[in-house]
């Protein structure tokens, strides 16, 4: 009996298990899915939680509900992968040998990487929305906020869902407008990048969006420390931004066991071939989703496209054939812009987000890189699609694995 182990039963790992359960013969293969707990979080919902639109019940379902027949869920904290022995060691002493390993352990925030960020103000007037607890705490703080300076700060790239901070700024604008206190709130968006929009076409189409919503951008702001006593963030070149409420997107890092296993870079992301998704170090280890060091976006749609590619390549590797499927960096994301509207973007390693229609050329019905109500409904409907189609690895109608230029304006 051979064994295939998947580390992480989040979006990427669950989809991978679904694909593999359809292809691996249970007579020959045991398929294990490992995670620390039985809570699957709908992470795209974290963006709506602070504004009271989603609650805990919208976000959490049991992981085992999405484990396919033919796969087993193993609950336990991973101590380390031991590639030389082809096995995974759990903290409770169990070891899981593998013939092939898929690492889909994602990434999470590491506020302690920035001086002063995880200090006395954390969850008092400094919040994150990249965890459920953080977004719920932020909801309570926003409900009480009567006015002042709201600062949204990206600590450093790469981060999960790179558009989320911008969406947060837009949704905060709408939230305060609806509460009738927008005129008492200053919204500042501080980013280490050269601007809120860094791709030429997006900048051209959407460049005035922030000014129109009176959101101030502090560009090339690389945070050095948080000064909790003065309620300000200070950049490495000593620019200070005072805040009443700080919404931070802390450094994102891969899982701690990656470091303990000597498999990652300095942020615990795993060096991965950007096309085949095989680990650069080990022939029988593959990496999927946010755990990779790829220049693609860390997002569920990316993991969805990758999972299809990886399924082909894993089956090829098992059969001793060359890996022929190549991932193109495809991502497809709805971006909330507030006021009941959203954008849709579709791009890959080589093609930036372009305007046009999606998914059907000439018909749409979605518009790319343009604010529409339909895109917003698409984003809301995505929760249903996520639980009922995406996690079950059902193909999404009209959305190909490789990005298509059809419908796009070049």
């Amino acid at each position, binding site marked *: 009996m051979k064994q295939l182990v998947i580390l992480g039963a989040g979006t990427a790992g669950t989809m991978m298990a679904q694909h593999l359960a359809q292809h691996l013969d249970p007579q020959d293969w045991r398929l294990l899915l490992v995670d620390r707990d039985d809570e699957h979080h709908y992470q795209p919902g974290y963006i709506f939680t602070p504004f009271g639109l989603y609650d805990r019940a919208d976000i959490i379902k049991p992981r085992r509900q999405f484990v396919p027949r033919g796969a087993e869920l193993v609950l336990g904290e991973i101590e380390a992968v031991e590639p030389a022995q082809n096995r995974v060691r759990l903290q409770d002493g169990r070891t899981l040998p593998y013939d092939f390993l898929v690492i889909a352990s994602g990434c999470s925030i590491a506020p302690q990487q920035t001086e002063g960020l995880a200090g006395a103000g954390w969850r008092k007037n400094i919040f994150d929305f990249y965890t459920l607890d953080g977004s719920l705490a932020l909801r309570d703080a926003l409900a009480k906020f009567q006015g002042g300076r709201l600062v949204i700060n990206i600590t*450093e790239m790469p981060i999960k869902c790179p558009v989320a901070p911008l969406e947060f700024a837009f949704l905060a604008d709408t939230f305060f407008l609806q509460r009738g206190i927008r005129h008492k709130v200053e919204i500042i968006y501080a980013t280490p990048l050269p601007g809120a929009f860094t791709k*030429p076409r997006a900048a051209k189409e959407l460049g005035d969006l922030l000014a129109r919503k009176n959101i101030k951008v502090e560009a090339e702001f690389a945070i050095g420390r948080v000064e909790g006593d003065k309620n300000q963030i200070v950049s490495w070149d000593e620019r200070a931004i005072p805040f009443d409420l700080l919404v931070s997107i802390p450094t994102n890092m891969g899982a701690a066991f990656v470091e303990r296993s000597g498999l990652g870079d300095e942020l615990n992301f795993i060096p991965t071939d950007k096309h085949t998704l095989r680990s650069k170090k080990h022939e029988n280890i593959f990496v999927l989703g946010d755990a990779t060091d790829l220049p693609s976006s860390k997002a569920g749609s990316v993991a969805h496209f990758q999972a299809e590619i990886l399924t082909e390549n894993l089956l090829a590797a098992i059969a001793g054939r060359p890996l022929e499927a190549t991932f193109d960096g495809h991502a497809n994301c709805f971006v909330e812009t507030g006021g009941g509207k959203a954008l849709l973007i579709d791009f890959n390693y080589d093609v930036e987000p372009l305007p046009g229609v999606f998914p059907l050329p000439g018909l749409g019905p979605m518009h790319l890189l343009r604010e529409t109500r339909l895109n917003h409904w698409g984003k809301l409907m995505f929760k249903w699609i996520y639980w009922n189609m995406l996690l079950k690895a059902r193909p999404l109608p009209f959305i190909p694995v490789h990005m298509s230029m059809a419908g796009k304006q070049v």
Partner: protein
Amino acid sequence: MPNKTIGAFTIEVDDEGFMLDHTQWNRDIATAIAQQEGIATLTDRHLLVVDFMRKEFIEKGTGPSIRRLTKESGVETKELYALFPGGPAKKAAKIAGIKKPAGCI
């Protein structure tokens, strides 16, 4: 995309002068770009940073953040800003012949 003649070289650049093909890069081009950016000579310290950025970009497809640049290259942040006045992430990327720091949109 525009071509730009810099010193004795013709290179492809984007609208802001960032090289489109990092394989066209060499030290002489780096020196010429640096001079246009107001850095008269590239010292060993400049080159340490530039080489580190190129290595990261070629390995990962993106340049490092300021925090990682400091932590991994061994050049202190204060010195980094002194070496590349006005913002090391962007300026050092330009001199290193790699793409400017960007998000997905």
